[in-house]
């Protein structure tokens, strides 16, 4: 396995949970609901997926159970925020806190147990194609699911009538309501889809990324997914690009750290000098690069106010109480 191939494979594994969680949240926000509970839903997905796979010995049952757990957990948010019209920001935060605690409690028995890995595909001839074989045909199923979901969301939002309806609910729930669209029902479905995706992201973490359950194992990835949605200005393909950019920077900085100057002794003078310059950057800075990149892009995007307004769902985070 070549170095470039190895790097790309690692990046894909790092980017997939972000992409899964973010693409779900994108649909939620497109419907005008802000669910800050992504981290909590991911953790619920991770622990249930791990537990199910551990008990049945089948990783696919785990994936399914994780996604459903995320979905059910999001229903809790839906009931509070949509039916009881609580504050969405506070409810979302509460969902995250609840998810951290609840998943820790459920998962107590699973800590330290060997997990079941959702293995990578291995298609006889195709996977062995040099350079691209492993990348295209030899990754874990979650990688393909995340890409299919992204394409599906893109198609649904911008090519179907139902997608148009969902977006209209997010842009102006009053107008949509006046047209006879069932705003709350649509938002419920969007929230559940978001939970489903976050659950899948969690399942990827506990079945593919590290194959174990550890308390709080998402370590902030839910928040990064939330930032990615804004970063992508609510566009699916930009979420894809953002997730991979984020994964790439994370992995690249680890590679920079692991490459010692001694390894590069054969490089021509100027290149060696440049490498020395890069190596002189403190690792704390390199570690924060993905976050810095997110902020920089956010600043660049928000410079054009008109464009930002055009993309932001106008009813985002605003409660809707139908007035008959």
């Amino acid at each position, binding site marked *: 396995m070549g*170095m470039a191939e*190895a*790097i790309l494979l*690692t990046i894909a*594994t*790092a980017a997939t*949970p972000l992409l899964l969680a973010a693409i779900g949240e994108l649909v939620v926000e497109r419907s005008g609901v802000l669910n800050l509970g992504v981290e909590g839903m991911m953790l619920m997905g991770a622990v249930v997926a791990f537990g199910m796979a551990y008990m049945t010995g089948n990783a696919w049952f785990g994936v399914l159970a994780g996604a459903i757990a995320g979905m059910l957990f999001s229903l809790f948010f839906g009931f509070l925020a949509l039916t009881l019209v609580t504050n969405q920001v506070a409810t979302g935060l509460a969902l995250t806190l609840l998810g951290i605690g609840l998943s*820790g409690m459920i998962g*107590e028995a699973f*800590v*330290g147990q*060997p997990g079941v890995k959702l293995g990578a595909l291995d298609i006889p001839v195709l996977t062995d194609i040099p350079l691209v074989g492993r990348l295209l045909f030899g990754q874990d199923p979650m990688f393909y699911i995340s890409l299919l979901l992204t394409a599906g969301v893109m198609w649904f939002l911008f090519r179907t009538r139902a997608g148009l309806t969902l977006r209209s609910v997010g842009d102006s729930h009053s107008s949509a309501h006046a047209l006879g669209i069932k705003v709350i029902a649509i938002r419920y479905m969007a929230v559940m889809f978001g939970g489903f995706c976050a659950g899948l992201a969690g399942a990827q*973490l506990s079945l593919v*990324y*590290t*194959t*174990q359950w*550890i*308390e*709080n*194992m998402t*370590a*902030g*990835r839910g928040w990064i997914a939330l930032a990615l949605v804004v970063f992508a200005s609510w566009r699916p393909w930009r979420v894809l690009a953002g997730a991979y950019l984020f994964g790439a920077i*994370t*992995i690249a900085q*680890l*590679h920079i*750290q*692991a*490459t*010692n*100057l*001694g390894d590069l002794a054969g490089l021509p003078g100027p290149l060696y000098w440049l490498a020395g310059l890069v*190596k*002189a950057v*403190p*690792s*704390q800075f390199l*570690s924060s690069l993905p976050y810095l990149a997110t902020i920089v892009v956010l600043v660049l995007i928000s410079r054009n106010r008109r464009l930002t307004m055009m993309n932001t769902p106008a009813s985002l985070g605003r409660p809707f109480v139908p007035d008959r």
Partner: protein
Amino acid sequence: MRKRTLLALAAATALMSAGTALAQDKTKACFIYVGPIGDFGWSYQHHQGALEMQEELGGEDKVEIAYLESVPEGADAERAIERFARSGCNIVFTTSFGYMDATNKVAAKFPDVKFEHATGFKREHPNVATYNSKFHEGRYVQGVIAASLSEKGVAGYIASFPIPEVVMGINSFVLGAQSVDPDFKVKVVWANTWFDPGKEADAAKVLIDQGVDIITQHTDSTAPMQVAHERGIKAFGQASDMIKFGPETQLTSIVDDWGPYYAKRGKAVMDGTWEQVDVWGGMADGHVVMAPYTNMPDDVKKLAEETQDKITSGELNPFAGPINKQDGSEWLKEGEVADDGTLLGMNFYVEGVDDQLPQ
């Protein structure tokens, strides 16, 4: 009417004093942990130590144990420690470096409660003691093993934060390795976290992709061990015996054994002989224990055991001269031994570490 009130008051007082008497029979030891006790690493070992102390000192009838898990370092810690001090704890163990200032602050308010802070150096009040273990002794042994086993001559080191404790570990590992193979190289990756299984796994993958064939870590999750297992290379565990996560992978692990120390200090509180101390125990004191040497040939195992014995007996000190600093300047002359103060504030690499230390 009035008589009845008085009676009730008397009864209540009697009850209360009975309660106090009951409490005095038992010693209450309280623990603040930085992670979950199920982390199978740092906090897990502290909790094992707490349980060992309870058993050693006569079980639940004699010692009551209370603990709080996943207490963030900083302002929140102060509230948690104070709550314990108020709730009748006789002795409070705060088990992470970041609790240092909070521990001292609360200790000022509760002079009758004893406080023990792990890995810190501030003892601002007579009721604060500090304790730590010489984990670097174990890392020296790991270095010896790594250099004996590695075919490529490169090990990967997943580090957390550039604090003296971690830097000391890297230096000791490298010195141990170079005692076997003077050209041995170490690739250091700073994860800048104590606990992020995903990131630790990524770091392990990256190191393996870059050609290391042995991995050691100074972060707390079991993820690197698992990656090493998947990729078929060997690894060292961290803080506790992680053999369960890599039966064919773990070479050994530095196990933090806090039990004997906790038992000793708990006993001192019971006997009323508790005094402020600053303890830095190593292999000789039983603070640092090595998990069984596994997955290695017998000659390497023998070498590892010999090294461990020499460190335990005091014949070998990882930081005994001559040692140069990374830039080649002299640090310790022949026959000189690093003093504890320098080690506990270590912010430089020794010669042979090919990495820039983040400052």
